[in-house]
């Protein structure tokens, strides 16, 4: 099973940008699709977007379209998520996860993004 290790917590001001990472090990990087999901304080889980690694093709939830960019670096087996125009309501824990069809089978430990 793939292991995912995410970058550390970030604090940003409203209107700024943040870029976080998710490094994969223990599997074939290109054979996966990778998604980013988030969990706001006391809230449920929300899918932000994902990328099919073999194609390098990202897709985003309409809510985040134009504000989120997901990229991947095959040489380091790392996926990135950049979010611009940060708002207070973007404060959440962001998880990366491998995705097989509609199932998220391996998860990173989470990255706290605080907008304050």
């Amino acid at each position, binding site marked *: 099973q793939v292991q995912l290790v995410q970058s550390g917590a970030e604090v940003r001001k409203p209107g700024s940008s943040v870029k976080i990472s998710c490094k994969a090990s223990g599997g074939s990087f290109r054979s996966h699709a990778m998604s980013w999901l988030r969990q706001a304080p006391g809230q449920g889980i929300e899918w932000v977007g994902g990328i099919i690694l073999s194609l390098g093709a990202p897709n985003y939830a*309409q809510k985040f379209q134009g504000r989120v960019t997901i990229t991947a670096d095959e040489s380091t087996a790392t996926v990135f998520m950049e979010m611009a125009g940060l708002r207070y309501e973007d404060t959440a824990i962001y998880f990366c996860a491998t995705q097989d069809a509609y199932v998220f089978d391996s998860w990173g430990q989470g990255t706290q993004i605080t907008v304050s």
Partner: protein
Amino acid sequence: QSALTQPASVSGSPGQSITISCTGTSNDIGAFNYVSWYQQHADKAPRLLIYDVINRPSGASHRFSGSKSGTSASLTISGLQAEDEAIYYCSSYTTRDTRVIFGGGTKLSVL
């Protein structure tokens, strides 16, 4: 407000069985057999328990089982153990642009 509806909390005693419900619509649970369940312990990442309504990934306990009827799905946990105390989330494929939606989570307390 989450797209799928789950009870906020359930409880049970060690050894008992409990069931957590997850209600959707004809655009998600009612139309597809792509329901998954995740377990999240405090300050941990979610862990896949059930996928495609009834299937368990390797490593998941046989005490967890899933089912579906109409626009609702259920997770049953048998032989409750203290370690089962966690928040449980359902998810489903959906015709919405997000493709996958989640419930708000159900906190299980083992008394």
